[in-house]
């Protein structure tokens, strides 16, 4: 394990991710008896992946998109419908749902290829908004979305994975979430990632240097949609119920706050944001109707005051922030523990 770590040349983002993984692996030791907290943690993981996929598209690849929940919903419904009506075994259903969502992502991406930023936001947002009446309509019911009641009794992941089995679900989803973030991490450090960043920073220059803008933009849509569709599918099998509720603007706003608080484009800020915001949201629950109105105010305040989010606070540009110091502490502890050569930066 240590050799692998050295080979991958972990940087601050990789280390942050691993630190989070370590903490998350241990949490159930304390909370496994509290169904409520376990459920919140599970939702943190699920929303974390949605936020991560969103940040990948918007913060990293620079494509303004508001369609993330559209992908989530399609993944959830696709897997729900495949397993419920076509008897497809759940793991296969989830995989297919991911692929279907990736396909939808690419289809939505096609009109966006030649569009300027704000237009892409509009098209993807319209896609999100259109899904609600579509799902609830007669047409939707005919396909089998269950209309306003939604899909019920969706089969769980496997035997023993009922919605009450929090600990198995937690670890499964932790694995899925980690893999998703790890995939994003690897992509950002690959040449494909370089293409995405080049297109974000200067599309004309990138194109003149041989980067195929259309192909790469569609890839972003496809990858992000796939990851979000998969986690949407997992969500469906976890809760057993799916309705147009998941397209509610309140949840949309909540995940957007995650992005903003974590730090857009600052990996893995989205994951950190997911935990903070989900718990904050639960803490504010007693306030019922005031909750969203407070969230809206928080979004505006955080964006204006802290545009780089929490990652910007932990790892500020140009000086040694708290994150860096903690990282050094960890590295020193490791080397002292194992007495080997220090982990390469």
């Amino acid at each position: 394990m240590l050799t692998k770590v050295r080979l991958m040349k972990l940087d601050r983002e990789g280390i942050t991710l691993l630190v989070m993984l370590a903490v998350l692996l241990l949490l159930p030791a304390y909370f496994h008896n509290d169904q409520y907290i376990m459920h919140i943690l599970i939702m943190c993981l699920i929303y974390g992946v949605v936020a991560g996929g969103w940040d990948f598209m918007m913060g990293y690849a620079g494509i303004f998109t508001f369609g993330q929940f559209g992908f989530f919903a399609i993944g959830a419904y696709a897997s729900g419908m495949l397993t419920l009506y076509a008897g497809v075994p759940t793991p296969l259903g989830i995989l297919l749902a991911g692929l279907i969502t990736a396909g939808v992502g690419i289809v939505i991406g096609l009109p966006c290829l030649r569009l300027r930023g704000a237009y892409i936001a509009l098209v993807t947002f319209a896609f999100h908004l259109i899904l609600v009446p579509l799902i609830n309509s007669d047409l939707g019911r005919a396909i089998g979305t269950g209309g306003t009641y939604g899909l019920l009794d969706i089969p769980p992941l496997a035997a023993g994975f009922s919605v009450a089995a929090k600990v198995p679900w937690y670890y499964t989803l932790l694995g899925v979430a980690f893999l998703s973030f790890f995939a994003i991490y690897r992509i950002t450090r690959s040449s494909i990632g370089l293409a995405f960043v080049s297109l974000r920073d200067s599309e004309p220059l990138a194109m003149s240097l041989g980067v195929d803008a259309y192909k790469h933009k569609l890839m972003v849509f496809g990858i992000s949609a796939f990851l979000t569709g998969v986690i949407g599918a997992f969500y469906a099998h976890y809760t057993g119920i799916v309705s147009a509720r998941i397209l509610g603007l309140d949840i949309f706003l909540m995940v957007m706050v995650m992005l903003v608080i974590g730090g857009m484009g600052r990996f893995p800020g989205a994951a950190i944001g997911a935990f903070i915001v989900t718990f904050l949201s639960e803490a504010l629950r007693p306030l019922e109707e005031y909750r969203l109105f407070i969230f809206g105010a928080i979004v505006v305040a955080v964006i204006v005051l802290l545009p780089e989010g929490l990652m910007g606070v932990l790892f500020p540009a140009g000086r040694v922030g708290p994150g860096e110091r903690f990282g050094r502490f960890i590295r020193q502890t490791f080397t002292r523990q194992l007495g080997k050569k220090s982990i390469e930066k």
Partner: protein
Amino acid sequence: MKILQVNNVTQCFGQLVAVKDLSFEVEKGEIFGIAGPNGAGKTTLFNLVTGFYRGSGDIIFDGRSIRGLRPHQICHRGIARTFQIPELFLTLPIVENVKVGVHFGGRGAHDERECINEAISFVGLQGKENVIAANLNLFDKKLTMLAAALATKPKLLLLDEPISGLSPTEAREYMTLIQRTKKELGLTIIVIEHLMKVLTEISQRLMILHNGEKICIGPPKEVTKDKRVIEVYLGG
């Protein structure tokens, strides 16, 4: 041997005709200058050749038509360019900027690292590889743009007003680079400038554009004496 042939190319933006029925040829290995007052259509011409615009008419590069190809495909055919207002990947260091050119534009580069270093040292930026592009001064930005373009191993290089905004020393350095590019790398180069003096020094042939039309083409000595050119430039 003609490396580039532009045949009856026209580009309109609504009612504005930016380039009107333009035809000319560029010889392989020469430095070809394009001058003209602002708004003459020079940058539009570059955008047409590099696939950013798609006008009517035909453009033949290295014997094959490049009409309708998209910019990245034209890069792969062997045309590279720089931009009038420096375009760079501002969040990336110089080495990554050039790497994009090597990786996506270079054709079958065996050792990327070597190609990157070659390009960077050719323009004289060695030692600054890890400086983030946003922190560079104008001259270094232009050099980075050039290095990235050269990293795609082009046959034809289009430079859009490379000297504008540079100090006299920097301008001289850049011009020397242009000549080295032709001599050492064997590239054909088309340079847009609206300062005639610069072009007459380095170009083998010049073309003057005005309102999207070619008003004169030939060796600098002839062009600078041309009546119409003098009129258009009012002694520029």
